[in-house]
């Protein structure tokens, strides 16, 4: 393997609609180094790496590998040049054997006849060189996650890899497997490869990286050798300055509200996502939940909204009563959980509306009343649409979100649960949503705002707490990012093969 692999990135910009995912980003990556690209969710790290691997075409900018220009936007050509990406979600075919999976990577270059052994050979040689045990006949799907990841790496090494990009490789691994992966990364580095590691966990970066580049909000913040920085410095770079409060919190909170005691919630894979947290949200208060995605935010929101069962009963008191008050819910993903894009605006509003006593009569819907009600909501929330029978998918992102918000506010909810309610919105729609949250609070609702956007949290919340591995902590410095004694882990994953 050559010791070439100097990757230079210059002024790359990429927008998705009105969202600037990358804004004039430049960085240098050297061979024989593990270079971490660090940032919060939405910072642009994955976008940048997808650009370098050819999966996305940037709007502007260029990149060179050992002086020759990379054919951005052409993934096959990028591979041929030696840039390989190890995706977070593996691209293995579970039902295929290891050998067949390895052969698949070389299939693009072969003729019509299939010679599995020959196609897999470069990867097998790489495994020999690295002293990795490899059971070529094993079914890929039956292997532990860490082993599957190694096969992904071997697929990459079977080509002409000079640059290996890892997309958050530790996210799916158990602690032991993380240790193994780090050993592998060091071996790859010793081979002279340029290893790029997308990460948002500080402790991991401090443990393994030689150099680090930090992105925030699509912009380049800083690059440094790891010896020149400490975890605190990196954290500051990642999240920026603590924003000033837009408005002082209301001094007098109202009587009553939500009281949550010892809440335990399981995630979709059976893992303990929320671990015995307790908190109060008074009426007239917005409580912000911050923290890095995947620390229980989704499960907390779904438990509060009554979508996901809580494990212990009696956890939920509103105004001292155990029955759930009217809850307004703004789910995280408006395209999958918020709206049925193929259905009309009216049908989308009816998802809550069909239960309203004014809109039904026994088992029947009162359509005339429903249309009238939908028109009123559209007007009140300034949704730009031709009428209530237009498909929701025909609306712009901002108007779609207004629709979701209007539905949550319709019945003057006592409790409002909002998850990243402004993600992907432009400034005007963003402000609109924030105004509505503040309005709900003024009307005496208890508001749970769950967001990964610190600016948003501090702009509208009265108090902010942070979720870290399913537990609450009061301040950002205990985000769980900074623990240097241990690598942040997820308990699950080990047995999940």
């Amino acid at each position, binding site marked *: 393997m050559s010791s070439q692999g100097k990757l230079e990135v210059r002024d790359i910009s990429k927008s998705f609609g009105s969202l600037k995912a990358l804004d004039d980003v430049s960085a240098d990556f050297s061979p024989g180094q593990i270079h971490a690209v660090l940032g919060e969710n939405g910072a642009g790290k994955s976008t940048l790496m997808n650009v370098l691997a050819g999966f996305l075409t940037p709007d502007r900018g260029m990149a060179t590998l050992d002086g020759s220009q990379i054919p951005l936007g052409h993934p096959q050509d990028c591979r041929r040049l030696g840039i390989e990406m190890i995706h977070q979600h593996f691209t293995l075919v579970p039902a295929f054997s290891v050998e067949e999976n390895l052969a698949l990577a070389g299939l693009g270059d072969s003729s019509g006849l299939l010679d599995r052994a020959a196609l897999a050979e470069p990867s097998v040689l790489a495994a020999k060189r690295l002293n990795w045990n490899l059971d070529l006949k094993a079914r890929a799907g039956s292997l532990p996650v860490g082993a599957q990841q190694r096969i992904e790496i071997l697929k990459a090494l079977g080509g002409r890899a000079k640059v290996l990009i890892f997309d958050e490789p530790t996210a799916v691994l158990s602690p032991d497997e993380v240790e193994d992966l780090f050993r592998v990364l060091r071996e790859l580095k010793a081979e002279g490869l340029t290893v790029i590691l997308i990460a948002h966990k500080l402790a991991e970066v401090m443990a393994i990286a030689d150099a680090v580049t930090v992105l925030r909000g699509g912009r380049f913040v800083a690059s440094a050798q790891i010896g020149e920085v400490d975890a605190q410095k990196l954290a500051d770079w990642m999240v920026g300055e603590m924003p000033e409060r837009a408005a002082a919190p209301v001094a007098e909170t109202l009587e009553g509200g939500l009281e949550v005691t010892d809440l335990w919630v399981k995630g979709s894979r059976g893992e303990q996502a929320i671990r015995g947290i307790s908190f109060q949200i008074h009426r007239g208060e917005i409580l912000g939940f911050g923290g890095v995605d995947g620390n229980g935010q989704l499960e907390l929101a779904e438990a509060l909204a*009554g979508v996901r069962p809580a494990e212990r009963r009696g956890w939920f008191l509103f105004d001292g009563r155990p029955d759930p008050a009217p809850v307004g819910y703004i789910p995280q993903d408006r395209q999958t*959980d918020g709206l049925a894009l193929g259905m009309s605006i009216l049908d989308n509003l009816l998802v809550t509306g069909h239960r309203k006593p004014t809109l039904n009569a026994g088992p029947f819907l009162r359509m005339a009343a429903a249309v009238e009600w939908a028109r009123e909501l559209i007007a009140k929330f300034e949704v730009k649409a031709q009428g209530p029978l237009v498909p929701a998918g025909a609306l712009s992102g901002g108007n779609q979100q207004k629709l979701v918000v209007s539905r949550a506010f319709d019945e003057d909810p006592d409790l409002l649960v909002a998850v990243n309610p402004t993600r992907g919105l432009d400034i005007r729609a963003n402000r609109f949503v924030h105004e509505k949250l503040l309005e709900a609070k003024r009307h005496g609702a208890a508001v749970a705002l769950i967001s990964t956007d610190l600016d948003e949290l501090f702009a509208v919340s009265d108090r902010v707490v942070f979720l870290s591995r399913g537990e609450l902590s009061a301040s950002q410095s205990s985000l769980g990012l900074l623990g240097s004694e241990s690598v942040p882990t997820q308990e699950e994953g080990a047995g999940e093969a």
Partner: protein
Amino acid sequence: MRFEPALLRFGRWAAILVVLLLVLIGALVAFGLPVGESLRLLGEGAAADKFGVARTLMKSTPLLLTGLGVAIAWRAGMYNIGGEGQYVVGGLLGAACASFLAAAPAAPLGTAGILMACIAGGAIWAWLPAWLYVRRGVDVVISTILLNFVAIQLLGYAVSGPLRGAHEQVPLTEALPQAIMLHHFDPQTDLHMGAILALVTALLAWVLLFRTKLGYEIRISGASPGVARAYRIDGNRARVLAMLLSGALCGLAGGVEYVGSAGQLGIGFSQQWGFLGIPVALLGALNPIGCVPSALFFGALFAGSENLGRFTSAGDTLVYVIEALVVVGVVALQIAAQRRTATS
């Protein structure tokens, strides 16, 4: 793939009619038939006199009922391909009920009882795949297809065994007494009360889907399982109920054939009406009202092709070819429309 009913709006009916005509002409050309003459024969067979009209309506009746069944299940995202099996089991349970009632067949009550049994039979045959899906995630397409074969074997067993009529030379059930059969409007034609029943059912199905809470829950559960879940709609309940309704309608189709025209069951009772309901529902945009002209179109084709078959080499085959082309056409339209929305 997911079928988006919204992509096939009524505004496209004109375009669809032109396409259907072209498909028809293309099929005639492919069959090597003189186009003008064949169209005339088709038209005459389907609508020239009261016999043609009656044939068209009679053929449309089971098509409409199974089409409605398919539409409701597919709206819930349950791609029920088991209409044929549900139709057959419906007929079978009806025949079993008739053999019980044989002692005292009071006309209106007996007929109603048999039809209820048919509805129950179809619903049971649809409940099984629905339950397997909800409990074990068994793919509905696969299980419903396979249950068709089970139902047809069951039919063969029943008509040659337990339900075989005492005086029948061939495997057939006892013929129903004329008093039990559905009312025939005109003794010269085969048209019976079932046509009205199907039309009323279409209206009821439309009301159910678009004017009731249950219908709404069925539609949203199919259109977006994520939204249904996030807003605490019990998607599994909606899916199971949609399948029950779907099976009930297909079973009713079997019942209407049984007490409407067949009068007794044999191996030949399975005549693909359950499968043919799929193109009816697709052309009808999964809308019960849309299914009415759609069923009439295919019913007319069947009636017309009988006439065509009297004078040329072609027969029912033509209809099946056209049905298949319609399914392909609707799927192609879907994909084209999805591409357009994806790129815009």
